[in-house]
């Protein structure tokens, strides 16, 4: 991947119904690893499989629908309201509008459904993105700094989203600097140092 080495000998296996906490210093490659697992970034070398599909193969396209990823930057459209954003996501997934409304209600954003994303706080946008994962029900849930900018209720929401995924037989990976919070819900934790998990 370009001139600098980003990750190297990462070795990771994640079984069903497992929550993994992933720690590491800034720039350690945590987000890169999450994007690799989300099939959004092809590996330049080495091999890996996600949900039984080779990361370097074309099969990635088929499993993407089963991967939920909430990254640092909100993926909502600033000109659209929260409800319009969620309805759009639901429409792409082939789900009825009602799913979007229910999910907004579930994350405590029913009152702000008509507010444009550009007028929402970062915490509200994150809640809305968690709402998308609620109706998508992914088998692999990847959350990058899920607890940042969240109030106590929303932190509980992250925990319940993770629990719902793992209870259904899926797996979750949480990248975070909040070790205490992640330790409380993760089955195991690893630290990324110089491209190696320790």
């Amino acid at each position, binding site marked *: 991947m370009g001139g600098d080495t980003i990750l190297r000998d990462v070795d990771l296996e994640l079984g069903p119904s497992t929550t993994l906490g992933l720690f590491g210093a800034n720039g350690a490659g945590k987000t890169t690893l999450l994007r690799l697992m989300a099939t959004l970034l092809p590996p330049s070398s080495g091999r890996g499989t996600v949900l039984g599909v080779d990361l370097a193969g074309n099969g990635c396209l088929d499993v993407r629908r089963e991967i*939920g990823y909430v990254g640092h930057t909100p993926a909502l459209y600033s000109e659209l309201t929260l409800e319009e954003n969620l309805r759009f996501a639901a429409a792409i997934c082939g789900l009825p509008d009602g799913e979007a409304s229910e999910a907004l209600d579930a994350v405590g954003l029913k009152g702000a459904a008509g507010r444009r994303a550009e007028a929402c706080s970062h915490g509200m946008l994150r809640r809305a993105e968690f709402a998308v994962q609620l109706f998508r029900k992914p088998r692999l849930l990847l959350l990058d700094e899920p607890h940042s900018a969240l109030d106590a209720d929303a932190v509980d929401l992250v925990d319940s989203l993770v629990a719902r995924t793992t209870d259904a037989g899926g797996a979750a990976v949480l990248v975070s600097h909040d070790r205490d919070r992640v330790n409380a819900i993760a089955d195991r934790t690893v630290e990324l140092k110089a491209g190696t998990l320790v």
Partner: protein
Amino acid sequence: MTASMWSQTRAVTERDLLRERRRGEVFWITIPFGAIALVMFPLAIGIDAVLLERIGPGVFWVIVMLFGILVSVRQAATETTAQRDALNLLGLEPAAGFAGRSLAAAILLLIFEIVLGVIVIVLYDLPATGLGWLIVMFPLVAIGLAMLGSIASGVVATGHSGAGLVPFLVAPLSVPLLLSATQALEGLRLGRPMLSWIVLMVIIVLVLAVLGTLTARPLQESR
């Protein structure tokens, strides 16, 4: 559950039109500037009715092409990396994304063409005849330009090349469309046969549709 190609296309089109309605870039920036550009020609050339009538079709289409490409590239290039990632994971079919973006841009371009068309008829003293042909011609150009813009912005979004590549990519590909549209409008003005030019426009649009559909997935995956 998986959405059909059509419902995904419709969702993307509705999203883009809603975003444009809230931003108002086409209605409050592009259309007024396009109109000003049309007005500038008579001011620069002087009131030479014969000359204006002769150059009218060419000037109209050149302005539609220049501003139209800006509209379609802008419409398709406003997605952030996070939004593209989210669409990939939601399961948006690349071809549906291409079709939806192109359709939204084509609708906006059609409105742009109609507004500028009225201005050019008034200012350039063009005969307002052949409405049936215009109903065929305007959507064809709008769809062609919209698809061209979507393909170009898809290439730019790969990150392998900057936005500066867009004019070099778009200019040669838009020439056949510009030429056939100008000749068709000229044929309408002079009462000459124009079917062959319309057929050429249809062929160009079909080629762009196939090209856009086939390149949608590779372009998406190389981002």
